[in-house]
């Protein structure tokens, strides 16, 4: 790619905004096996099991992404492809609850130019490099943000592997997806888009008192696995307030999954955030919020990067003789 142009508009303008209504909006048709911990007829809220205590070390993994600029390429034949210059970062925070110290145990920042343009090359803006990530298909602008998710998840997997010790617990923000092989790992799903359970079982879920969980059930979706609902400490009485879904690998035996569920019940509530500090409270856990802030600061200043990209585009245009 010899030439490209940077959109003058702030990339955040008009970017998709995450509407997160409380509670699922769609019914899932995934197969559910609800009888593993308790018979489906006997479903009820489960409190903390005596004798189970939180692990000393909890690791939490999350990633952030930001679109630094929207770009348009100029092809030889006069055509043009949209592209996104994005920065993304993943990190793991190590909460040593015994010592009372939460530290960033590892973080990686990467950038990329996401476009379907066949002629695109890496963009070098000052001492910052945006390697090209070629998107298959027509590459229309609306689909490009989703393309950033792949490399970001890969980065999250990369950092998750570091800083593990025996008897710790790894909490991954979002679904486990291809991280199911990691030991003692929970997927933590903040917002419920789909309703997996039937009406009777859902009534048990929305009737959970704070600090209780539903029995473990097995999901048969594309990423099947063990799953359970948990209500974090919350003041609001709304049906889905403070409800999160936690999942773990399907390769585990039912007993192991139940043990992890008990562990999650004594571990996660203490990380719950307070509403006046976090608009996504209580589901957005305190360490995750802190981690996201740290990671965002590591992405670099958005205006500075936008300016660097604009300068790089102008330099490329000059070199091409325009």
């Amino acid at each position, binding site marked *: 790619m010899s030439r490209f142009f940077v959109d003058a508009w702030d990339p955040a303008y008009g970017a998709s905004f995450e509407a997160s209504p409380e509670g699922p909006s769609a019914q899932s048709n995934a197969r559910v096996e609800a009888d593993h911990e308790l018979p489906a007829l006997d479903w009820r809220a489960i409190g903390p099991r005596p004798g189970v205590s939180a692990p000393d070390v909890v690791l939490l993994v999350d990633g952030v992404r930001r679109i630094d600029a929207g770009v348009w390429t100029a092809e030889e034949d006069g055509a043009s492809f949209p592209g996104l210059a994005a920065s993304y970062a993943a990190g793991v925070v190590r909460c040593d609850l015994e010592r009372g110290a939460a530290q960033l145990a590892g973080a990686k920042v990467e950038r990329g130019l996401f476009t379907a343009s066949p002629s695109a090359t890496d963009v070098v803006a000052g001492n910052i490099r945006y390697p090209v990530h070629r998107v298959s298909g027509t590459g229309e602008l609306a689909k490009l943000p989703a393309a950033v998710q792949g490399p970001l998840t890969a980065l999250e997997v990369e950092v998750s592997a570091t800083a593990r010790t025996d008897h710790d617990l790894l909490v991954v923000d979002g679904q486990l997806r291809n991280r199911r092989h990691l030991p003692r790992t929970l997927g933590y799903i903040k917002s419920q888009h789909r309703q997996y359970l039937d009406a009777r079982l859902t009534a048990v879920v929305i009737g959970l008192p704070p600090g209780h969980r539903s029995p473990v059930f097995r999901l048969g979706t594309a990423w099947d696995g063990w799953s359970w609902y948990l209500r974090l400490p919350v003041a609001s009485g709304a049906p889905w307030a403070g409800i999160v879904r936690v999942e773990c690998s399907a390769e585990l035996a039912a007993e192991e999954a139940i043990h992890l569920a008990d562990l999650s019940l004594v571990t996660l509530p203490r*990380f719950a955030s307070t509403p006046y*500090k976090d608009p996504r409270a209580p589901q957005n856990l305190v*360490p995750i919020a*802190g981690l996201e802030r*740290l990671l965002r600061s590591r992405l670099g200043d958005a205006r500075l990067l936008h300016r660097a990209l604009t300068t790089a585009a102008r330099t490329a245009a000059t070199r091409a003789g325009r």
Partner: protein
Amino acid sequence: MTDEGFDSPGEGVGRVLGTADATPLQFWTAVSPGSYLQLDDVVVTRRELPDREPVTIAGVVTQVRARHEGAQFDSDVFAIADGTLPAQVQEAAEITTTRVDPEFYVPPQPGAVVHRAEGDARARALHFDRMERRIPMGTGRDGVPVYLNADFLDGTRGAHVSISGISGVATKTSFATFLLYSVFRSGQLGGDAVNAKALIFNVKGEDLLFLDHPNTRLDDATRAAYARLGLVADAFPDVRVYAPPRVGDSSGTPDVSSRLTGVDSFYWTLTEFCANRLLPYVFADADDERQQYTMVVHSVAAHLARYAQPADGGVSIDGTRLGTYGDLVDHIVEQLSDDETRGDWAGSAVGLGTVNAFARRLIGSKKDLARLIRGDLATRRPHSINTAESAQVTVVDLHNLPDRAQRFVVGVTLKSEFERKEKAGTARPLLFVVLDELNKYAPREGSSPIKEVLLDIAERGRSLGVILVGAQQTASEVERRIVTNSAIRVVGRLDPAEASRPEYGFLPPAQRQRALLAKPGTMFVNQPDIPVPLCLEFPFPAWATRVSEAGAAPSQTLRSITQSADPFAVVGSGGGTADDDIPF
């Protein structure tokens, strides 16, 4: 020179940070994990320039702060301490530049490594390398000596010291005496130090009467502190103490209670009082300054100088022999009340009210000054304060004199010393004058004979070798010209309201705050060639500051007052003892 400065700068302690403006005169440094910087630490950094030699920027830490990075709310600290919220503790230090070398005022670049300055780099940062003669003043917070440039003390480039601070905790007089000790004993002034004299007025307690007694509480740690400064912990070797005569004692024994030996009494004879026109110094009270009768004072003083004849200890005026100060006062008042003689004494154009005001004041002074102005003691007995003929340190005890008498003694002594120096016409030997409560003798408002003498010393003393070491609780209440003429300004603990006054503008805000909590023995010293005041601690006095600390008295103080006169002088000759004194 610059390269030498950066060859051995000491360990790196942090980097210049870029979230706050870095300027050539002040910048912030982020402190590396595992390192620390405290207030007053000396640091050095360097700036590379494209077309010239690198610039070394040195400074002292004037503020330090620590904060949680990653915390948004105050309550986040609990989550952080609980181990749920990741955050980093970051310390930062504000550096105030003391030296830029070569003088090329560019800011240090964010990211530049900041080193703790040690050894030569520290001396260079604090300009000690440019001082040809360095007088140790104490140790910095890092335990290394800090120095005073002697050029700004002995009159070469500046003179006078102004010490301010709350009474009791600011240790003003202790610092003044330590400074004198350092001047005399550090050897930095060479031959000048041997011949230099000091005149110290003791205004409170008998604190300064034991300068020549070793301190029995001196321990090895203090001796080591003196040794670090290149000094020997010892008492002042050559001290002479003067005290006023006891009230109502016809033999004139000195009025001291704790120090029993080696104290001489001082007084003025009536002849001296008349001949030297000392009368104006009787009228040196705060109220006197605004009165109308100064004309009468001068005219009476002139009359006394003209007509008073020495007469057997006392004076004789118009054939009347006057044997005491009281007699003299009564005589003057009598003459002024008489219509026939009033014109001769007070001048013709003076109203009766003014004369009466003068007379009232004069009568009021009888009680205070009768013991200092004598007609009944031997004229030739040594009784005057003269630093040239006295020991290296002359202590004049004023503490049990009433206010009017204190002013009289200070005024007359300073005047005669200054006149003597003026006549000598040379700045050497130096004379250090230590005077506490300067705000009393040279207040900001009004004028008095003493203030005139002090102003003279402040403005011309530098060339005449008279160095004023003035101490006061509040520099804002001292005549501005005296404060501004002081090259060296010292501050101990300050009163909060006082610290905000413009007289202390040389203190950066952080130091001004610290001066409110300065503990005894901690002083902030500002000298002309270092842009930031240095915080220092001076060692505990090696000499006794009260009778309970006093060790054995030095042998020469055991001599009696009569022995200090020369026993071999021929009786009746000018320098000998009077006929009625025992000649040996």
